[in-house]
């Protein structure tokens, strides 16, 4: 397991203690946790801990191992207001809108926390800082839950992650036979732990679930695959539906537009977008930089495994966290692991 413990302390808590703790958190702050919404598991605010959808392998579990959308949506929502616009005659008044609430997210999977860390590289660490993302990030504490078992499409360990990777959490919980082992990873996390109430332990978490690992081409190897005929073949399946980008923990493309909200009142919003869309790159006059589906599919893979790390100074890092969601949602069977395996094969 990956230990990134901030104070060297570990606690062992029961399910009841965990629930009591989450309950007290939800009294003072917004608690977001996996919740069933019309049959779909999503990270959503929970009014009471009874609403929490415990993952597979935990008491009262649902069959899902991951919410449909990643925690990305908490920091970078599908649609958010940037500011309000009031038009009175020739005069314009802008009213900036920023999120201010304090939030705790429970049940974050390591692949999702990795995704947040990867988005930090763009929205926080690459100038200029994104004001909206930064506020949400500063006001949010992540309580992680290590994966006891790998889901059918999980492959985090092939892209630098691990089912019990705690490094991107504020607090990490590991399920053991004796209860939950809890550790603070950051100072922000330590602040939330009721040290006086919990039992300290010297034990460590249970065994890491086994995952099959496969080789992913290093970032520097990607350019040589740019002109491969492979992309045209693979893209025959792609429907340009963009579902892969929306469920991805690190896809970050967005559009900005104005919407009417009342007489003389508008809001400027940004919303998720995806390079898979046909008109995504259309410029004035109608020219499209990537008219072919193969070019758009290729762009998404190149962004994940080559462009993004270069643009954000991450070096030889994958912007894929191995969550497997894009495989789960693709209606046409485009499988990111199949692509990685194909490209990794000796020519």
């Amino acid at each position, binding site marked *: 397991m990956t230990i990134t413990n901030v104070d060297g302390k570990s606690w062992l808590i029961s399910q009841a203690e965990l629930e009591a703790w989450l309950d007290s958190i939800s009294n003072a702050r917004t608690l977001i946790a996996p919740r069933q919404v019309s049959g779909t598991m999503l990270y959503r605010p929970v009014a009471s801990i009874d609403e929490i959808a415990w993952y597979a392998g935990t008491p009262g579990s649902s069959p899902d191992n991951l919410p449909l959308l990643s925690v990305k949506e908490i920091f970078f929502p599908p649609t958010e207001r*940037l*500011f309000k*616009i009031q*038009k009175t005659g*020739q*005069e*314009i008044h*802008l009213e*900036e809108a920023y999120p201010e609430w304090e939030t705790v997210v429970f049940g974050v999977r390591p692949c999702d926390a990795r995704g947040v860390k990867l988005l930090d590289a*763009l*929205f926080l660490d*690459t100038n*200029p800082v*994104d*004001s*909206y993302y930064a506020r949400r990030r500063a006001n949010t504490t992540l309580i992680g839950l290590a994966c006891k078992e790998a889901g059918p499409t999980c492959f985090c360990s092939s892209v630098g992650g691990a089912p019990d990777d705690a490094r991107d959490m504020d607090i990490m919980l590991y399920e053991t036979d004796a209860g939950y082992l809890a550790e603070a990873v950051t100072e922000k996390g330590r602040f939330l732990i009721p040290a006086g109430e919990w039992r300290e332990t010297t034990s460590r978490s249970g065994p890491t679930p086994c995952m099959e690992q496969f080789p992913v081409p290093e970032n520097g190897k990607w*350019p040589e695959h*740019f002109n491969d005929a492979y992309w045209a073949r693979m893209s025959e399946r792609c429907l340009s539906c963009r579902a892969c980008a929306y469920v991805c923990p690190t896809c*970050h*493309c*967005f*559009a*900005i*537009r*104005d919407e*009417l909200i009342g007489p003389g009142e*508008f809001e*400027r919003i*940004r919303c998720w*977008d995806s*390079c898979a869309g046909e008109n*995504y*790159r*259309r*410029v*004035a*006059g109608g*020219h499209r*930089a*990537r008219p072919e589906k193969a*070019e758009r599919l290729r*762009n998404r893979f*190149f*962004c994940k495994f*080559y*462009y993004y790390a*270069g*643009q954000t100074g991450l070096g030889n890092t994958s912007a894929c966290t191995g969550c497997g969601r894009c495989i789960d949602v693709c209606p046409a069977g485009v499988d990111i692991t199949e692509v990685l395996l194909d490209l990794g094969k000796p020519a």
Partner: protein
Amino acid sequence: MNANPLVPYLGRLVEVCDLASEIKLFRVEMQNGGGAAFESFQPGQFAFVSAFGLGEAPFGIANATGRGPLVDFAVARLGSVTTGLHELGVGDQLGVRGPLGNSFPMDKFKGKDLVVLGGGIGGAPLRPVIQHVLDHRRDYGKLTILWAARQPSLLIFTDEYAEWQAASDTSLHLTVDKPEEGWEHSVGLITQLLEEVDPSRENAIAVTCGPPVMIRNVTKMLAGMGFAAGDSYVTLEARMHCGLGKCGRCNLGEKLVCVDGPVFNMAEVGNLLEAY
């Protein structure tokens, strides 16, 4: 830039004039913090202009600093934002976000001949280059302007041709694809004009902007004429939404047009994985 660079400065339209058919020039007086932000933008930089309620779009800034406090934008009416902008009049407020992107290395160009090739509305971001050279005439060598449009009614900055031609060591060459009655200049593509004018590539820099197909053909011809890739500059367009390297919409391979560009030389563009 604003503390939150996604929030535009307000500006007031102090002058609107027709540049060409469906193309208007907007002259904006920046308000609040915008005046300071736009005090010293560089030729080649761009900004987002908001038609509030309809959205914003990126435009190359169309004038050089040092000619007064106003910021110029040439806007062709093509989509909803540009249509909204065309409906604005003197006194109306709009939003301006920037200045953004890199710029033409005008210092590096000093002492060199400049060949400026503009096609259609693509000439707009080259006007600051022309103005800068004219305003610092002794710093630069011969200025050769090749200016093109589909038809005479689409040629921009026609009112300024006299000024350009009157400047020392400066020549202007015009061409259109489809001439109209009374047209006295060249007919044909800008590549034909380039062949005819045949500017010297000794100690010379070429600067090109226009539709992608024109940029491709012109830069190819320039290379064939002997312009080194590092001496052939372009400014590229992409329908970016943030201009800050975040929204991801303007990548050409590993480069982002908004923060790595919009100005590139062909040595840089030639190494990109993707063509523009």
